[in-house]
């Protein structure tokens, strides 16, 4: 049986309040023992067959990150991303598990598509893939999919992400029916009529640029509806990519009332404002759009006080065909898996958020929100681990991203916090030291 030992690193695992120097012994893909480094007298035979030792001295060892919101694009849009390239991007970003959205072609609205994704992931993936099934057939917002079948095939949640469910009754029924399976309904909360033909946040910047705006109210109104429905039904609601201060406030008060809701926001909504759109770079076009400074501040506050549970990437690969076009015509979205951790860590460096808070948002919180039983390193846990260097910086070079698509607004930026190694099921799937530099 192969053994992996990670020695001398600073293990931080907020799920069990651990922060200290530990040696981690991994066997058969699971965590065997965790020993304090200064009291560990185990003698390792260097070069023993099947033994790999990673010296993590000076590095930080964390539970592998879990992305609650990834678009892997396969099947159907393999020119943008495949399960192979998407999970490679995940690995290089420190993500050991990704939840992939249903807006593929065909839509993941039946078990055969779910199985296709899982088979592909097993054969070619370097991260665990957890599909999210569609809420409605074809994401048309009309008829519910067979939640039971999808769940049995491996879906961990249901979402029509990309297409808001405008019919309140359909949303109500989805929240009711999903209770059988204890799986959350992930809502892309946006009123499409209020969003209209908008291509960026509505405000002084859209006025200056002459671009059509999407008002905060388009999100606030739908979040309010979804929270009311969650309250009415007692269903499990997860709000995707929260971007407005209004939505943060609504979720905060709903949680205080005991509504069964969790929420995520993205690294880009936490770090960029609509000012980034000046210059009409289509890599700054996404849905929901980059908002105002007040919204960014509110999102950070929400993350800090636990209103927002997860940092999820909304990794949305788009090719040049979708992005090298007029701003109005350009597709939404950016790739995010490979920059997420460094951007989140940047918030710690700036002050205002603790390392503990961002690790929670990337590990145990998404695990709990989606009942994955991951995001924690205890004896017997699946050995999904990421080793990072918090002292090193790196410069984002889009051409070197693992993702098949290069649509990042962070190209050329120097970020602090480098993923050194990613371990999935006890195997090293990414090793920065072996990358050509």
């Amino acid at each position, binding site marked *: 049986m192969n053994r992996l030992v990670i020695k001398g690193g600073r293990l931080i695992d907020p799920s069990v309040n651990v922060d200290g120097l530990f040696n981690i012994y991994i066997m058969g893909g699971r965590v065997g023992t965790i020993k304090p480094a200064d009291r560990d007298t185990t003698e390792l035979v260097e070069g023993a067959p099947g033994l790999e030792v990673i010296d993590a001295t000076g590095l930080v060892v964390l539970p592998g990150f879990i992305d609650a919101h990834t678009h892997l694009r396969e099947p159907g849009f393999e020119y943008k991303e495949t399960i192979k390239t998407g999970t490679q991007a995940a690995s290089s970003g420190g993500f050991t598990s990704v939840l992939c959205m249903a807006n593929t072609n065909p839509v993941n609205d039946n078990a055969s598509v779910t199985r296709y994704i899982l088979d592909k992931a097993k054969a070619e993936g370097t991260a665990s893939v957890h599909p999210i099934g569609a809420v409605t057939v074809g994401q048309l917002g009309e008829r519910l999919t067979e939640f039971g079948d999808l769940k049995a095939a491996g879906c961990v949640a249901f979402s029509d992400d990309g297409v808001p469910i405008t019919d309140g009754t359909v949303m109500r029924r989805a929240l009711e029916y999903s209770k059988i399976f204890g799986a959350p309904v992930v809502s892309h909360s946006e009123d499409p009529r209020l969003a209209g033909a908008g291509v960026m946040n*509505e*405000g*002084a*910047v*859209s*006025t*200056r*640029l*002459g*671009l*059509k*705006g999407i008002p905060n109210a388009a999100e606030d109104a739908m979040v309010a509806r979804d929270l009311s429905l969650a309250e009415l039904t007692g269903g499990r609601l997860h709000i995707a990519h929260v971007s407005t201060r209004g939505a943060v406030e609504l979720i905060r008060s709903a949680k205080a009332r005991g509504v069964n809701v969790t929420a995520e926001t993205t690294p880009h909504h936490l770090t960029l404002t609509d000012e980034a759109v000046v*210059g*009409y770079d*289509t890599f700054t076009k996404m849905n929901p759009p980059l908002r105002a400074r007040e919204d960014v501040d509110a999102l950070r506050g929400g993350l800090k006080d636990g209103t927002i549970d997860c940092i999820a990437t909304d990794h949305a690969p788009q090719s*040049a*065909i979708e992005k*090298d*076009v*007029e*701003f*109005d*015509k350009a597709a939404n979205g950016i790739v995010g898996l490979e920059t997420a951790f460094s951007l989140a860590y940047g918030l710690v460096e700036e002050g205002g958020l603790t390392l503990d808070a961002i690790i929670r948002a990337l590990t145990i919180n998404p695990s709990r929100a989606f009942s994955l039983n991951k995001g924690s390193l205890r004896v017997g846990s699946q050995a999904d681990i990421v080793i990072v260097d918090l002292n090193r910086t790196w410069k984002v070079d889009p051409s070197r991203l693992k993702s098949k698509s290069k649509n990042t607004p962070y190209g050329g930026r120097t970020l602090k916090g480098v993923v050194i190694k990613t371990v999935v099921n006890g195997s090293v799937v990414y090793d920065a030291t072996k990358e050509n530099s």
Partner: protein
Amino acid sequence: MRLKRKDLLGIEELEKSEIEQLLSTAESFKEVSAREIKKVPTLRGKTVINLFYEPSTRTRTSFEIAAKRMSADAVNISVSTSSVSKGETLKDTAKNLEAMRPDCIVVRHSSSGTPQMLSKYVSCSVVNAGDGAHEHPSQALLDMLTVKEKKGRIDGLKLSIIGDITHSRVARSNIYGFTKLGAEVTVCGPPTMIPPGMERLGCRVTTDMNEALRGADVIMMLRIQMERQKESLFPSVREYSRLYGLDDAKLKGAKDDVIILHPGPINRGVEISSEVADGPYSLILDQVTNGVAVRMAIFYMLLGGTREEAQLK
């Protein structure tokens, strides 16, 4: 004299001195259009491509005439946005045009920011002939030239722009231009047609037409798109016209020496009555004449040699 920049994308990024240079150059070119042989050889051998993704008669013709009076070769390409074949990106289009080695691409597009994107893809000059609701710099320059001619100055004047501010690139370019030259600008329209944060562009905002007219030295009426009714931006043309259309009765509240501009084409009886459009205060046709001179100046200052050269010829 040349501009210190490759492109003319908007008035926002121009310095006051650059605007003044463009206006004084345009003034000197007006004389060319008054000659019997309306041509100078200044830009002989230069190629200008007019790339219009949006229907336009006046602006396209004006750019074409301006290029020809400067002896540049002008080629017109009209592209209906819907017919652009799928798969060819704006970048592809730009690279293909550039491969024909033009000196300047004049572009109009219904999407804001397209000239900015195009300018990054090509090494030749790019002139914005109107992009979405963003900017229309040559229109603002010709408006400034028209006002300067009539009033002798722009500094200290009061300009009121009335109509659909949200969708107006003319309004935005004029706010930048007139305020840079020292004028005070007020925009006016129904609240449904004034976008958030408008005052941050440097203008005052009102929804009261009488307030906008009172004390104004220059009134600029904007064209109203009839289709906007469908977007609930105004209930009817009749009501819009009553509240925000300029007619003789409303004009009584304006100064005696007020002048009236309109970027055209006008909707007679909607945002401007025929009496006003054809009346003594209207400079609508002077604007069109000045458009040619301003565009000659733009070409000259982006592509040309020295100013002395131009006057010699």
